C-alpha cells in the first residue's frame, strides 16, 4: 500500500511538473481547444552586463616617443599612433649600436653589438658591413613557479597565446621590471623587420637563447648555400647544416644583389616553429648614395627612417606582417614545463594536418590593439608604400575600404608596368609578399574621400579573435585630419569600450549590448521553468527508484 502511494506520487509529480511548452504539439492544440490560451507570463528580464572596466584605449608610457625628432643626427619621422617605437632604438638601428653614444644606447635597450655597422665599401657615404644579432624569446610560456604564463604578451585584451619570436639583442631583463609579469617593450610579436641595402655585406648571428634548436632561413633573399668558409648558410637542417642548439650561436652571411621584400624564418620543424612566430619580414632596399637604412623595425608598422629610394618616390612607408595562430599549438608550451614533454607535445602529439587557426594578427596584435599601433595614417594626395607579408598558415584576402591599391612588386620582384592595375582585394598565399602603392588621390578610383577606412583580411575568420568579432587583423587607413589629439581615430560609429574588455573575447558580453542595452542583452533565467524541470527530474528519479526496487525484489 505504501509502495502504491509512492508510485502515484511520482507519476503525478512528473505530469504536473512537465512544462506545458514541452507538451506534444497535438496535445497543446487539444488543450487550447478545451481551455483556451494560458494567462500572460512576461519573458525573463535582461541580466546586468559585466562589471569589468574597459582598458584605456591608448596607453602612452613615453609621450615623446612618437614625436618627429633628431637623435644621433638621424631624422626620425613623426608617429601619431598611441604606441610609437622607441626613437633611441631607431637611431641605434640606423647608425649602428657600435656608433652611438652611451646615452643613446642605454635608452635604446640594446646591447653594444646588437646591430653593428662597419666600413663603407663602395664609398657612397653609407656603411656596407652590417652585423645583426638575433635572439629567440618565448612569450606566454610556462613556469615551475605558477600556473600563470610568464613573460606575458597580449595580442588582444586577455588573449595570450604561447609564442616564439626572434628578437633584437637587448640588454637586461626580459620583463619590464621585477614586479611586472609583462614582456618588455621590444620583446613582442612579430619578429622584427630586418632592413638592409642591396649589396651590403650582411652577417646575421642567431644567438639561440631559447631551450629548443632553431635556425635562420632567408626566404627569397639572395644568399649562398654555403658561406665563405664552406659552412651551411641556408638554415635548413635537412640539407645545409645542423640546427643551432640552445645556448649556441651561428652566423649567416649574405650580400643580396636584388632588392625587394623578402621573408626570414626558422627552418627547424618549420610546420610548428614558423607558426609559433619565428618569422619576420626581410627588406632589401635599393642601393643609393648616403643611404642609412633602419636595420630593424620592431613590431613592424610605420618605417620612421625611410631609405633613400623610398623617400624619393613615396610620402610614407608601412611594414605590414600578417600572421594567424592556432590556439591549440601555442597552449602546448603552457601545459608542460619539461622541454622533453614540450617537444613531444609540439612535434609529435600536435598534428598540423588537423589544425585550425584561431587568432589573426597584424604586426603581432589583433583588433582593437591594432588601432594602438598599426594604423596606416595618411594625408590626402599622398603616395604611400605598403609592404605586406602573409606569414600565416592560410591565405589572406587583403581588402582596403575606400581605396584601390596597385601591386608594384610580388615576392620582391617588380610587376611590369603594363600589368599593374588598381584593385581592392589581394590574395596572398602563405609566405607571399606584395608591395602596394596606396595613392590617396580623391578621384573615385584610388580613393573615395578622406576618413577612417578599415583594411583587413576579407575572409570571415580573419576578422575575428577565436570566432569573436570584431577582432582579428582589422586595422584602418586613417587620414591625419581624423586623428584626434588623444592619438585615437575620430570614429563616428559605436564605442570601442566593449572591445577593450577581456570578457568580450571570453565571449561573455552580448555583441550589441553597449549601444542597444536591454534590446539584445543576455536574458535572465526562467526560474519558474527551472523549478518545473528540477521537479520533473525528481519525479523521474523517484520512478526510477521504484522500478529498480521492483526488479530487485523479483530477483530475490
Amino acid at each position: 500500500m505504501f509502495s502504491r502511494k509512492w508510485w502515484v506520487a511520482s507519476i503525478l509529480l512528473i505530469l504536473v511538473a512537465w512544462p506545458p511548452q514541452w507538451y506534444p504539439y497535438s496535445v497543446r492544440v487539444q488543450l487550447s481547444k478545451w481551455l483556451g490560451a494560458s494567462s500572460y507570463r512576461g519573458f525573463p528580464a535582461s541580466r546586468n552586463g559585466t562589471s569589468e572596466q574597459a582598458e584605456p584605449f591608448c596607453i602612452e608610457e613615453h609621450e615623446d616617443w612618437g614625436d618627429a625628432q633628431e637623435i644621433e643626427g638621424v631624422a626620425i619621422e613623426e608617429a601619431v599612433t598611441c604606441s610609437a617605437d622607441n626613437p633611441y632604438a631607431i637611431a641605434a638601428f640606423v647608425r649602428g649600436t657600435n656608433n652611438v653614444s652611451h646615452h643613446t644606447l642605454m635608452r635604446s635597450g640594446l646591447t653594444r653589438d646588437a646591430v653593428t655597422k662597419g666600413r663603407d665599401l663602395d664609398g657612397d657615404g653609407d656603411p656596407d658591413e652590417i652585423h645583426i644579432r638575433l635572439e629567440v624569446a618565448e612569450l606566454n610560456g610556462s613556469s615551475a613557479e605558477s600556473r600563470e604564463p610568464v613573460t606575458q604578451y597580449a595580442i588582444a585584451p586577455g588573449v595570450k597565446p604561447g609564442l616564439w619570436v626572434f628578437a633584437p639583442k637587448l640588454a637586461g631583463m626580459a620583463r619590464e621590471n621585477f614586479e611586472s609579469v609583462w614582456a618588455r617593450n621590444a620583446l613582442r610579436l612579430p619578429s622584427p623587420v630586418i632592413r638592409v641595402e642591396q649589396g651590403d655585406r650582411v652577417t646575421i648571428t642567431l644567438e639561440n637563447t631559447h631551450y629548443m634548436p632553431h635556425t635562420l632561413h632567408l626566404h627569397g633573399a639572395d644568399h649562398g648555400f654555403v658561406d665563405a668558409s664552406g659552412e651551411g648558410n641556408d638554415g635548413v637542417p635537412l640539407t645545409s647544416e645542423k640546427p643551432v642548439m640552445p645556448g649556441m650561436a651561428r652566423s649567416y652571411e649574405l650580400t643580396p644583389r636584388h632588392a625587394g621584400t623578402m621573408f626570414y624564418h626558422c627552418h627547424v620543424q618549420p610546420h610548428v616553429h614558423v607558426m609559433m612566430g619565428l618569422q619576420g619580414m626581410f627588406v632589401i632596399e635599393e642601393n643609393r648614395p648616403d643611404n642609412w637604412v633602419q636595420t630593424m623595425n620592431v613590431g613592424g608598422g610605420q618605417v620612421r627612417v625611410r631609405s633613400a629610394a623610398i623617400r624619393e618616390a613615396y610620402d610614407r612607408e608601412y611594414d605590414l606582417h600578417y600572421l594567424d595562430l592556432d590556439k591549440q599549438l601555442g597552449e602546448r608550451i603552457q601545459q608542460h614545463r619539461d622541454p622533453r614533454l614540450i617537444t613531444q607535445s609540439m612535434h609529435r602529439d600536435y598534428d598540423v594536418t588537423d589544425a585550425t587557426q584561431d587568432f589573426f594578427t597584424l604586426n603581432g596584435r589583433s583588433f582593437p590593439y591594432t588601432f594602438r599601433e598599426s594604423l596606416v595614417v595618411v594625408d590626402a594626395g599622398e603616395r604611400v608604400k605598403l609592404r605586406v607579408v602573409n606569414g600565416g598558415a592560410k591565405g589572406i584576402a587583403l581588402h582596403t575600404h575606400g581605396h584601390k591599391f596597385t601591386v608594384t612588386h610580388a615576392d620582391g620582384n617588380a610587376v611590369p608596368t603594363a600589368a599593374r592595375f588598381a584593385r581592392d582585394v589581394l590574395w596572398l598565399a602563405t609566405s607571399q609578399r606584395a608591395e602596394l602603392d596606396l595613392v590617396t588621390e580623391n578621384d573615385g578610383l584610388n580613393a573615395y574621400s578622406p576618413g577612417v577606412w578599415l583594411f583587413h583580411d576579407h575572409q570571415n575568420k580573419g576578422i575575428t579573435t577565436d570566432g569573436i568579432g570584431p577582432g582579428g587583423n582589422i586595422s584602418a587607413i586613417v587620414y591625419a585630419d581624423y586623428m584626434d589629439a588623444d592619438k585615437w581615430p575620430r570614429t563616428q560609429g559605436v564605442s570601442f569600450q566593449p572591445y577593450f574588455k577581456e570578457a568580450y573575447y571570453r565571449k561573455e558580453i552580448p555583441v550589441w549590448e553597449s549601444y542597444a542595452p536591454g534590446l539584445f542583452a543576455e536574458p535572465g533565467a526562467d526560474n519558474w521553468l527551472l523549478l518545473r524541470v528540477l521537479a520533473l527530474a525528481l519525479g523521474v528519479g523517484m520512478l526510477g527508484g521504484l522500478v529498480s526496487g521492483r526488479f530487485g525484489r523479483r530477483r530475490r
Partner: protein
Amino acid sequence: MWWLLAMVMSDAGMVMNANSDTLPRGCDAISRDYEFSIEGGRAHAAGHPGLIFGLSQHELRVEPCSRLTVSFSNLDQVRHQWMVHGLPKYLYPGGMFHIEANGGATMTGTFIVPGDDRTYLLHCDMAQHMEKGMKGQLVVGRGSGDLWSVKGQSDAFVRDDYLPATVPGWSLFMVFLGAALVFTASRLRRR
C-alpha cells in the same frame, strides 16, 4: 626606468647597481668578504633531465652585512645573467644587483647584503632561462626558508606529471581489483 639605474656596460656585458662601500641600514661594518666564481650555461645542466641551462652553484650562503664579489663566467655563446632580487630599494634601484655576461665572457661585480636573515632569489631573467634551470638562492644568515624550484635544494612548485600513457587503463584495473577484493572478502566472511 631601468636605464636610469647605476650601470657599467662594456662589450662583454654589464654590471648594474654595483656597491662596494655603502653599508645597508643596520650594518655597522662589512662583516666578511666573499669571492665567488660562478659559471652559467648549458654545461651545468648536463646530467639533470628536464633542465637546459644551469649554474655551477645554485645556493650561496653568506653572513649578514657581508660583501660579495661575484665573477660570473658565461660558458655559452649567448647572453646570460646572474641577478639577485629583493635587495633594499634605497640602496639598489629596483631592488636588484645584476651581472650580465655575453657569450664566453666573464663579468665581475661587488655588492653588500643587508643585515637581516633572508633568502634572496637569484636567477637569469632572460625568457625561460630561470624556468629551464637558472634559478638559485642567496641565503643571508639563517635565511628565510628555501625558495621553490631551486635545483638540488627544493622541489618544483608546479610539476609535470610524468605518467605513462597507459595510466588510465591501469587505474581502471586497480578500481576493479579493489571492488573484487572487497566483494570476495565479504563473501568469505559471510561463510
